[in-house]
């Protein structure tokens, strides 16, 4: 048993960077929301005003889910904290499982351990225990943040539980994809697809007037149905717990039955040669990344289509009747126009495509860490060309994703006769690109200057920039400090005009940053793991 404990501790300690950064993010957001609400809307009158304004910004539901009670600090916090951090918790669960299981297996360490004195089930239980300890950390961070933000401990603990519940489900789901996929990357892609599907279901349920029951079909909806600070229903917690246990049990069974190092979906080991993508390192990078790019296109395109589809059908049906009465007293809820809805929703794509840019730089770093880059740069390939090609490919990916999102949102809106032109939506799509390309350049700089930390820095800068808007207003940061975040400079096209100057400045900075990154990379040693 002591071997199992040692392995569980090893898994927990391996995840310390991820656990630490997620816990910090969770605690900050959990503290900031109640604090901000209390300072921004101290009186009932202010809060009713906020509800009125919120009704005009229904797209917030896309990120935060359905609000149940916006007139109390607890209710508001449950919506803002639970809604978005539940998605993060799901992502955390999937990353944790794939890291603890599939990445270990890919590296060959699992083989070493499984050939030792630890049984197969013991190994699985140990890895998953390490991850479950991480769930506890997240829960504690949330609780600490909420209590520090002035909410009562008991109900905060319940909200924290509802928020981390998806982590349990996606931990199980990640464990399952680790049994199916033969590589870490494929396991992540499968689990990521499932998370996206869960999010799409929640968005449809929360934003449409007739499909609210779909909330029961997604683990992210279950968190909402636990209704923290708004008539709690603790029995709903049984759903994520049961599903998580079932997925873990299924994964453990499959794990016991399969070969170490393989996956149940293992593709053929023999293939006829295909000449596509072998002419240059950049072409090979495109070949290696093509399925990932297709996945991003499908995911963001599908999401954009739904945004377009529901842009005309936002209603206040989900808001409680007492709230609706108060809204009426204020002169009736101003329901969104499609353009406003789409404009706000597309901020989500700025974030998503920035994260995509980070994954591309992470892939470049992976190439170097695995020492494949040595094989390339020992050929007559200039270093600048390798990195510039890689960055150009990533930038082209961002532009393709942006365009595709714009076109599909237009298609969705056109189905509903929303009356938004294709040209407008192409503009709205392309409006997402400059900020994402700027983040690409920042990631490239991190890659050139601090290669080992580059992936963490890249994702960290994007996340911090995204929450900076919120945090900077809490700490009362001056305007110029708030405007450091590129997200501040994205116009809400099509509701607002495109901020051409800001976009041009971001692209200019990105070009400059990329040039410096390429220069710095050409002057440093290659660095292994």
């Amino acid at each position: 048993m002591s071997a199992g404990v040692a392995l569980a501790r090893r898994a927990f300690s391996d995840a310390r960077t991820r656990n630490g950064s997620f816990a910090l993010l969770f605690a900050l957001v959990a503290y900031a929301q109640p604090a901000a609400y209390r300072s921004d809307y101290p009186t009932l009158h202010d809060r009713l005003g906020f509800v009125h304004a919120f009704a005009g910004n229904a797209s917030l539901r896309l990120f935060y889910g359905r609000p149940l009670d916006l007139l109390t600090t607890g209710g508001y916090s449950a919506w803002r904290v639970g809604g978005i951090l539940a998605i993060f918790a799901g992502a955390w669960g999937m990353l944790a499982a794939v890291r603890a299981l599939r990445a270990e297996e890919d590296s060959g360490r699992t083989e070493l351990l499984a050939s030792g004195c630890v049984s197969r089930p013991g190994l699985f239980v140990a890895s998953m225990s390490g991850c479950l300890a991480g769930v506890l950390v997240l829960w504690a961070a949330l609780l600490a943040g909420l209590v520090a933000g002035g909410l009562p401990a008991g109900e905060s603990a319940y909200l924290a539980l509802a928020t981390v519940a998806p982590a349990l489900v996606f931990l199980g789901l990640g464990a399952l994809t680790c049994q199916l996929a033969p590589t870490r990357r494929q396991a992540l892609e499968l689990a990521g697809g499932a998370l996206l599907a869960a999010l799409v279901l929640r968005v449809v349920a929360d934003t449409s007037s007739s499909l609210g029951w779909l909330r029961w079909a997604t683990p992210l909806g279950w968190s909402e149905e636990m209704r923290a600070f708004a008539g709690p229903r603790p029995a709903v917690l049984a759903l994520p717990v049961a599903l998580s246990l079932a997925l873990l049990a299924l994964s453990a069974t499959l794990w016991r039955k399969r070969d170490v190092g393989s996956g149940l979906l293992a593709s053929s080991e023999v293939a006829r040669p295909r000449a596509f993508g072998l002419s240059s390192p950049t072409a090979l990078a495109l070949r290696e990344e093509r399925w990932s790019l297709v996945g991003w296109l499908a995911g963001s395109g599908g999401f954009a289509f739904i945004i377009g589809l529901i842009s005309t059908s936002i209603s206040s049906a989900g808001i409680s009747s007492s709230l609706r009465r108060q809204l009426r007293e204020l002169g009736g809820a101003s329901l969104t126009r499609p353009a406003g809805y789409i404009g706000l929703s597309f901020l989500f794509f700025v974030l998503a495509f920035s994260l995509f840019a980070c994954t591309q730089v992470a892939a470049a770093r992976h190439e170097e860490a695995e020492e494949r880059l040595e094989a390339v740069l020992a050929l007559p390939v200039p270093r600048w060309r390798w990195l510039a090609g890689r960055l150009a490919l990533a930038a082209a990916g961002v532009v393709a994703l942006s365009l595709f999102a714009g076109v599909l949102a237009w298609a969705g809106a056109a189905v509903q006769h929303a009356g938004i032109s294709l040209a407008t939506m192409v503009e709205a799509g392309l409006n997402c690109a400059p900020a994402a390309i700027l983040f690409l350049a920042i990631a490239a700089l991190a890659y050139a200057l601090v290669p080992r930390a580059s992936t963490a820095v890249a994702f960290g800068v994007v996340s911090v920039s995204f929450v900076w808007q919120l945090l900077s207003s809490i700490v009362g940061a001056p305007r110029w400090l708030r405007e450091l975040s590129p997200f501040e400079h994205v116009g809400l096209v099509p509701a607002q005009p495109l901020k051409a100057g800001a976009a041009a400045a971001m692209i200019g900075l990105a070009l400059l940053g990329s040039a410096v990154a390429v220069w710095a990379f050409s002057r440093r040693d290659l660095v292994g793991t």
Partner: protein
Amino acid sequence: MSQVPSPSRSPATGHRGAGPATDAAIATFGLCKHYGSTRALDDLDLVVPRGQVFGYLGPNGAGKTTTIRLLLGLHRPTAGRAEVFGLDAWSEPVAAHARVAYVSGEPALWPSLTGTETLDFLARVHGSTDAAYRAQLIERFQLQADRKVRALSKGNRQKVQLIAAFATRAELLVLDEPTAGLDPLMEVAFRETVLEAKQREQTVFLSSHILSEVEALCDRVGILRSGRLVDEGTLAELRHLSARTLEVSFRDTPPSLEGLPGVSVVERDGRRLRVEVSGELDPLLSVLAEHRVEALRSREPSLEEIFLHHYREPGAVTQRA
């Protein structure tokens, strides 16, 4: 630390600070590489003439791979410089690499590509490949080229790298422990291929710690220890300058032989002595002449003995521990 036989020390010393040694495939001038406080490579002066097979020996962590990374411009020298065909390895890597093929010790390739696709990619990016020879090498190394790299064992991935490198017919082959994962049959195929390259007057820089391989293939040998070149020369030169072993059987009690310059008794078994002699034999022979010697056998040191000789010196062991 006992003295390194200085006459065999780098013939490149004379080139230090001078222009490129135009007849050399590889030349390094006071080449140093430090990683933080670790001196991975210290003041390396090395010349590998064109058309030679150069064996680069050293135990794990001696600085062999560091040297190669500097030769390929993958790492930047802390001091000094390296040249490949007179081109600076750090500032002119692309021109140099057009004439070089490299096999790394860790065969890190793209898991999703098949062997054929990998060879195709490496050939197209390198720019020159002898397709007929490549087919011959695939045959010789019995590579299952339609298998994906992720399904290949380490030895098989190593074959992919070797075939890609030799098929370029590059003027200089830089091989970093290339036979680490190969079975004995493939080792034979490897030696055959290196000798073919030598016949075509290609230069081979072979980093290895397989002494029999180096002994069989190399014209010259350099021995690296803790980042310093401790010996360099042809095998004959190294033998000449290293300790030779004498086995002497006496009819009566053997002499102590203590205090004789360059002589150390490594084994004493009754009337039989095993003695290592570095330098001149005369002092030992004049002592032996005063005793009744039954048998005397002299043996040249094997490369292994030369190698171990350099590593068993006091200080060396603790340094590497």
